[in-house]
């Protein structure tokens, strides 16, 4: 199975221009709200119509503006898990699942019973959605989608309505479901953790464009541009001036740094993840700092550092909860942990994943 998307849709103040093809595996679209990621999903499902372009699932053309092909949502064979699940409130769990089963299914009752069992809903079949917990609602929504046997499964912020404990459980649950499912999976999320855990491929969207695409682990290890660095959770970003092949000046911090990778002309920024600083193990780069503020979390502490010498920007540092950070005046940074970035407007013309 594969998914090919090349579409444009214009609004008065927003343009969506998305171009990617996904060969195999699960794909996450990561971006802030308003970046166009849900709109992309709705265009694939046929709930929104692009102004122009092509959408293909395998050999099937779902949309082609030039050939005037625009399949109705029900002909597209796309399962869509809505953020709010969109269970029909006037139907019981049983009816919610039953309505999605295709007419050609031989024994509806048996199919429904199997689905109820598989999604641990046995005993709840006579309940109305309002009487179910969030996790149960999500399982009904999934059972309903799989009753329909879709070719592509699309998940639109599937965990945002769940509390954090349930969220972790459902993420594990979903990984199991995806492993058993042999269609395409597209996940839309603003959570980098979800994208990282669930999907092996990643697209990063901003303002209607794809800013970065690739294997999830590759993109997290080397975001490549400022947007991707931010969206993947890089807290420290500074403009740079290139000094030599392996040396640069981080302008916002006012420090010179050694890098392992070659600094190229098109590199305009660097990013450093907050975890990558250390105050104990010495590394290639030492930065003289003062502790401005310490924010204690349950498992780690976030430390705001000011760089000595009148730097414009502070540095975020995250370290273990038990570290004594009060007297820290110098942090170390390995040259391999410096992410070399281009400025945000580099949009790859074609994202073949």
């Amino acid at each position, binding site marked *: 199975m594969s998914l090919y998307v090349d579409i444009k849709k214009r609004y008065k103040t927003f343009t969506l221009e998305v171009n990617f093809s996904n060969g195999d595996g699960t794909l996450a679209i990561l971006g802030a709200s308003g970046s166009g990621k849900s709109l992309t999903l709705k265009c694939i*499902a*046929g*709930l929104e119509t692009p102004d122009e372009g092509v959408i293909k699932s395998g050999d099937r053309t779902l949309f082609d503006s030039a050939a005037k092909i625009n399949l*109705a*949502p*029900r002909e*597209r*064979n*796309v*399962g*869509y898990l*809505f953020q*709010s*699940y*969109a*269970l*029909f*409130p*006037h139907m019981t769990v049983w009816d919610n699942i039953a*309505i*999605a089963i*295709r007419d050609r299914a031989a024994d509806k009752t048996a199919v429904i019973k199997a689905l109820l069992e598989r999604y641990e809903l046995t005993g709840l079949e006579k309940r*109305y*959605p*309002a*009487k179910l917990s*969030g996790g149960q*609602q999500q399982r009904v929504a999934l059972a*309903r*989608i799989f009753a*329909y046997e879709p070719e592509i499964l699309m998940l639109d912020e599937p965990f945002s*309505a769940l509390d954090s404990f349930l969220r972790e459980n459902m993420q594990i649950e979903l990984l199991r479901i995806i492993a058993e499912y042999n269609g395409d999976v597209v996940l839309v999320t603003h959570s980098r953790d979800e994208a990282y855990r669930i999907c092996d491929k990643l697209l990063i969207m901003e303002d209607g464009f794809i800013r970065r695409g690739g294997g999830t682990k590759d993109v997290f290890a080397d975001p490549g541009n400022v947007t991707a660095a931010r969206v993947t959770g890089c807290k420290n970003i500074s403009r740079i001036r290139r000094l030599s092949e392996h040396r640069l000046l981080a302008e916002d911090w006012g420090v010179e740094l050694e890098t392992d990778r070659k600094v190229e002309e098109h590199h305009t920024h660097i990013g450093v993840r907050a975890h990558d600083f250390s105050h104990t193990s010495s590394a290639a780069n030492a930065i003289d700092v003062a502790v401005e503020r310490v924010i204690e979390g349950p498992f780690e502490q976030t430390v705001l550092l000011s760089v000595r010498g009148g730097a414009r920007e502070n540095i975020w540092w995250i370290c273990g909860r038990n570290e004594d950070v009060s007297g820290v005046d110098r942090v170390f940074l390995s040259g391999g942990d410096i992410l070399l970035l281009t400025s945000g407007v580099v949009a790859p013309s074609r994202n073949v994943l």
Partner: protein
Amino acid sequence: MEFAPILISLRTASVAIVFTFVIGTWLAYAVYRTKNEIVRSIADALLTLPLVLPPTVAGFFLLYIFGVYRPLGSLLAQIGVKLVFSWPATVLAAVVIALPLMYRSAKAAFTQVDPIFLQAARTLGLSERRIAFRVLFPLASPGLMSGGILAFSRGLGEFGATAMIAGNIAGVTRTMPLAIYSSVSGGRMEEAYRYVVILVLVSFLFVWILNFVSDFRSKKYRLDAGRR
């Protein structure tokens, strides 16, 4: 006081509401589904017009269409159907006058259904017809029912258009509102008083029931359960 007007009124309103409900809901669904905004707004205005015009204007148009010397009226006459000044004309008048109420209630009810349920139904492969009957209409049912009751009550009280197209024939087309008019113009105030009391009580009963209809289904399930 005669009982005939009471029976005629109830019979007229009961038969009329079947037509009003089906036609009004269908028109509302058709307008709701229309994507062209100009067509939609014109249709909306036309269908609301009988609500604001005097019923005599509706009566005038009905006479204009169904009068025995008009094309449609004479055609009906040829096959032996004389609509004007017959009992079915009271039904016709009640349907035309009550239709805007049903139409507007139904359209508002459809608009209030969260489109996400319709989108979900579409991605689950349901046909538009099935979506209408299994998802849209059930979710809009409190609004449809209150529209139906409103339209029924309006049909019960219809006077102007009925007088013009059905006349005031005792025992045939004399509904309660017409009976009240006849009684007053004949100086029989006592009789008019009784009809008035009955009409007010019956209408009150239905409008009162209206209050419970909107709560009726939501007790079993919350309509907003899809959003959390």
